[in-house]
């Protein structure tokens, strides 16, 4: 099978890879680039564990073909912290125990980051609906929603 050469920007760095045309962006991230922070929970866009930001938009990387990434910008969980400095959401999730098993956590953090970039002052309902595509089976969402709301408040306070 002929492979396609794709050049794209991942977490700010130009990256290129060869892929089969039917491979998804998630496949390439995980299996070819060893960026396994994005998780495959369903492969059908129903769980959000593979959430990435593609050209500024939150998407499921399992529903993006890898060749579509040509010339685009991809942000993943691996790019969320700046070196050793955690993103405020990451720090708050730790402090507020907003994770248990942690497998949905990367997707939720990426989704929450995208929300706060668009809406710095979301209501609880807005957070819940924004994150409705990110399934978590451990927490009942309670601590996750609180952590997102508190981070938003902190960021507004700091701004």
């Amino acid at each position, binding site marked *: *099978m002929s492979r396609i050469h794709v050049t794209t920007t991942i977490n700010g760095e130009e990256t290129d890879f060869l892929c*089969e045309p*039917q*491979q998804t962006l998630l*496949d390439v991230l*995980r*299996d070819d680039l*060893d*960026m*396994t*922070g*994005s*998780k*495959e*929970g*369903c*492969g*059908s866009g*129903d*769980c959000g*564990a593979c959430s990435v930001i593609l050209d500024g938009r939150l998407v499921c990387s399992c529903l993006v073909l890898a060749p579509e990434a040509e010339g685009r910008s991809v942000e*993943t*969980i*691996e790019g*969320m912290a700046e070196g050793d400095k*955690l993103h405020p959401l*990451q720090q708050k*999730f*730790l*402090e*507020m*125990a907003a*994770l*248990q*098993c*942690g*497998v*949905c*956590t*990367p997707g939720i*953090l990426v989704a929450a980051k995208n929300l706060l970039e668009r809406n710095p002052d979301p209501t609880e*309902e807005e*957070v*819940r*609906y924004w*994150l*409705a595509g*990110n*399934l*978590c*089976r*451990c*927490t*009942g*969402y*309670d*601590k*996750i*929603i*609180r952590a997102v709301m508190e981070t938003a408040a902190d960021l507004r306070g700091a701004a």
Partner: protein
Amino acid sequence: MPKDEYQSRAFNIVGTRPIRPDGIDKVTGKARYGADMTAPGMLWGAILRSPHAHARIKSIDTSEAEAMKGVKAVITRADFPKLDLDPGMADILDNSMAGEKALYDGHAVAAVAASSKSLAYAALDAIKVEYEVLPHVVDVDLAMKPDAPVIHAARQDETVPEGLSENVTSRSQYGHGDPEEGFKKADLVIERHFTTAATHQGYIEPNACLAQMGADGQGDLFVCTQGHYMVRDTCAEILGLEAGKLRVTASEIGGGFGGKTHIWMEPVALMLSMKSGKPVKLVLTRDEVFRATGPTSSSSTDIKIGMTKDGKITAATGTFRLQSGAYPGATAFLSAMCGFAPYDLEHVRTEGLEVMTNRPKAAAYRAPGSPMAAYAVESVIDELCQKLDLDPLETRLKNAAREGTKSAYGPTYPAIGLEATLKAAQEHPHWTAPLGENQGRGVACGFWFNFGGNTSVNLMVNPDGTVSLSEGNPDIGGSRASMSMMAAEELGIPLDQVRCVISDTGSLGLNDVTDGSRVTFAVGLATIKAARHAIEIMKTRAAMKWGIEPEAVDWVDGAAVPAGPNAGKFPPMSIKEIAAIAANTGGPIAGHCEANAEGAGVSFATHMVDTEVDPETGAVKVLRYTVFQDAGKAIHPDYVEGQFQGGAAQGIGWALNEEYIHDEDGRLLNAGFLDYRIPVASDLPMIEPVILEIPNPGHPYGVRGVGETSIVPPLAAIANSVSRGAGVRLTSLPMSPPKIRAAVKAG
């Protein structure tokens, strides 16, 4: 009877809420889960599954797949060694790879390993299987009928009464007194039939492993599981390997809830690696997770309870029928034990019937057997309260089991926390908050035994005085944090001086599966004992240095001190100082504990929920939810709360929308997260956790397991709130909108 371990004391670290030690890896994406590991030269595995609910496998032609370029191994059941396994082990093998018959839609019939994922799937398409489709049965009541299609013949034990299908494999009975006499004393007796659908644990991480078998018979397996020792021992036995030659490492685990306490496909990965001579990664798809890894049992239950008009239960009986899927071994016996466990009853009888069906092998799911039993029992108690105009909390308090009560399943309770949860519920503002139109408030109680079991812990004092703690239970919800906290507490050192790791099967003694809410209790107990062991050694080393008897040394705030003025006058010797002289005082310092822990304290909870029903559509909105549960002692309260909240959320899903839906051919119609509807964030309110702490006599700090009880009350609590809000009593789960709408219409 376990000895009384509990000692009241003040804590420095236990009970605080530090950041968990594995947290940073999990928020940055570095943590490696089952599917995140690779090996040089690795192949991709894939499994071909039966499209039929029940079929004889007439032939499997793998020749075309084997001839494909890049396909390195194709296996069927014929590739597995023919060993004389006991029936339980033979079932696990048969469930991993079908033998003569495919027993459910999704049953594995062949597998491949190939150099890429896409090739592996293409190879599956090239395998030709000829089936003879057989009659099937998926419903538990139909499967019990004498003329039902039989899944396996001759698996009944001697407890099963005559006249039932061979699918009924076992009957268990519990209770005491004479219920018929008791019912005569009741002012009102209600008898109801209930059903619950099969629900899946719904962990977000699909089952995955990486298997690597060497030509010398030594192997390595990296796997997401709740119990890697169980995986080692089971795989070794059914593959004819020696357990010591197979090293199993538990990956980070993306949820399990009981579903990963079983073997599903690990022997297949190992066999593919054996046959190909290469490492093989096998990751299930979500479709496979739903079709081929066990959900919990669906159930059919009859409950009869008598009550006086002032609210005393005079007698109770229950029959619980649980389907076990394609093999014997459901948890109806646990339903029969748990259903009436919260109450002090003079007359009580229960029976549990285990029933095979053409469904995936039923698996443990958080307090297996208890939620469906509590749903039925707590619904009938609530209906009695409604009809007798009694307060549902007061009535439960009146009948509540307490210290000294002979439980419905036999043992007499030591100190327990049910009353405390009920009283906390009465005093909580939630109980008296106003309700609007079509809104109702429901309460229900729940019980789980909790478990101890085989446990090994090593605690090494490093040369610099830091501590390495090794335990052998996958960390499913923060247990490395709580073990580190207990070790630091016991040693009297700062938390950041302890690092806890989950050891592989080659580096630590046996540990039972992470189940039965056992880890904080049993591993915690072993951690404390390992720390005490290390302290004894350190006291000896200090004594040696000081030239006094070890008995004359105490351990205070992380240092050895002379036990009293008579012991001599020496400044405290810290753990760091003792570690520094270890080489000259007898060598490395390590404490350890290997035990089969007993004394896991039973656990009770009371849940309170407000719902609003849309009478025109039957939709139920959960407005407010409060969990009251006895934790014995909350080591890390955040993660105790998390267990309360998570269990409640799963219970809400079970109550309202989750179910396995089969077509008339027995095929699963909703094998995905779109149509198997676990609650999403916008479906739920905040879930308020109220932790009660009634110390467990069997643990030094009073710990009780907390992981499972929280899923027990929600089913009935929601049903009771719907009944009180919309005036309809649903006796079948899930209470999906069409059912509620039909009930509202029928009045």
